[in-house]
């Protein structure tokens, strides 16, 4: 039981890091650009987790002031990640627009097929 509780305390970090390296692996290993952007999104969301997991207090409640509660989660990471989510979709939209343009110019969205055409 003791070992399980210790593991539970660390489990959020384990999963956060797993999502992070999975996103990194997709970005580096896969040559399809849409897949690369999905990998980038996974990496981004793992950073959201990295911020939000420490903000939680077990037994606390959402940071909305109410006389019935005294313990609130930390609101500051929530604000920062709220901004990050919106910026994230902005970068995703710009990246996807670039992918569409690349598909028009080269007829493919695969990095390995573009390089020979581009003289690389």
């Amino acid at each position, binding site marked *: 039981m003791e070992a399980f509780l210790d593991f539970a305390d660390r489990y959020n970090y*384990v999963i956060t890091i797993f999502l992070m390296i999975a996103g*990194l*692996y997709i970005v580096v290993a896969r040559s399809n650009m849409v897949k690369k952007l999905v990998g980038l999104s996974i990496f981004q969301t793992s950073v959201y987790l990295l911020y939000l997991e420490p903000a939680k207090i077990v037994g606390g409640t*959402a940071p909305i002031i109410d006389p019935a509660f005294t313990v609130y989660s930390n609101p*500051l990471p929530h604000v920062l990640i709220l901004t990050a989510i919106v910026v994230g*979709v902005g970068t995703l939209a710009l990246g996807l627009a670039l992918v569409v343009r690349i598909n028009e110019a080269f007829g493919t969205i695969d990095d390995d097929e573009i390089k020979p055409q581009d003289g690389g």
Partner: protein
Amino acid sequence: METVINMALLTLLAVVTVAMVVQRSLLSVVILASIYSFLMASVMIVLDAVDVALTEASVGAAVSTVLLLATLHLTKTREDMPRHGRALPLLLSLAVGGMLVWGTLVLPPFGTANAPIHQHVAPRYINDVMAETGVPNIVTAVLADYRSFDTLGETTVIFIAGIGVMLLLGGLRRQSSEEGAPEDPS
């Protein structure tokens, strides 16, 4: 109880991520990404980040999925087999993962109230927000009252991204109308 629900949802997230890595059909990857975002929103609700969960469900799960599906409509939906080895990216990822695990060893356990993050700025917001702004939702108060400049910067970024997308795709339409429809007067 909260810890157990959190662990279960995080495990589901990891499973969906593995499916996304191995899946070759891009359509399936996009749908899995949508599922991933909804799971992430559920995790955020368990973590008491309700405002963030709403944003993630609407922006991450809905808008991102629509954008990805629109891109797949304009391009291809099948991913080719990779032409080079996977050893180097795997090694890189595992090295980065190892360093991150090493870095998290000293972090406080999940959900503790006396962690350093809860000692410094947050109590100031929680204690004074009603007197200073009159807004009970602290996240909204910080976003719109204390840190409005962050939000201004955020809208600037979205504006620039929107201009970029318009320029990129507007140029596409002009080019195709020049080639495809010469009778178009514009």
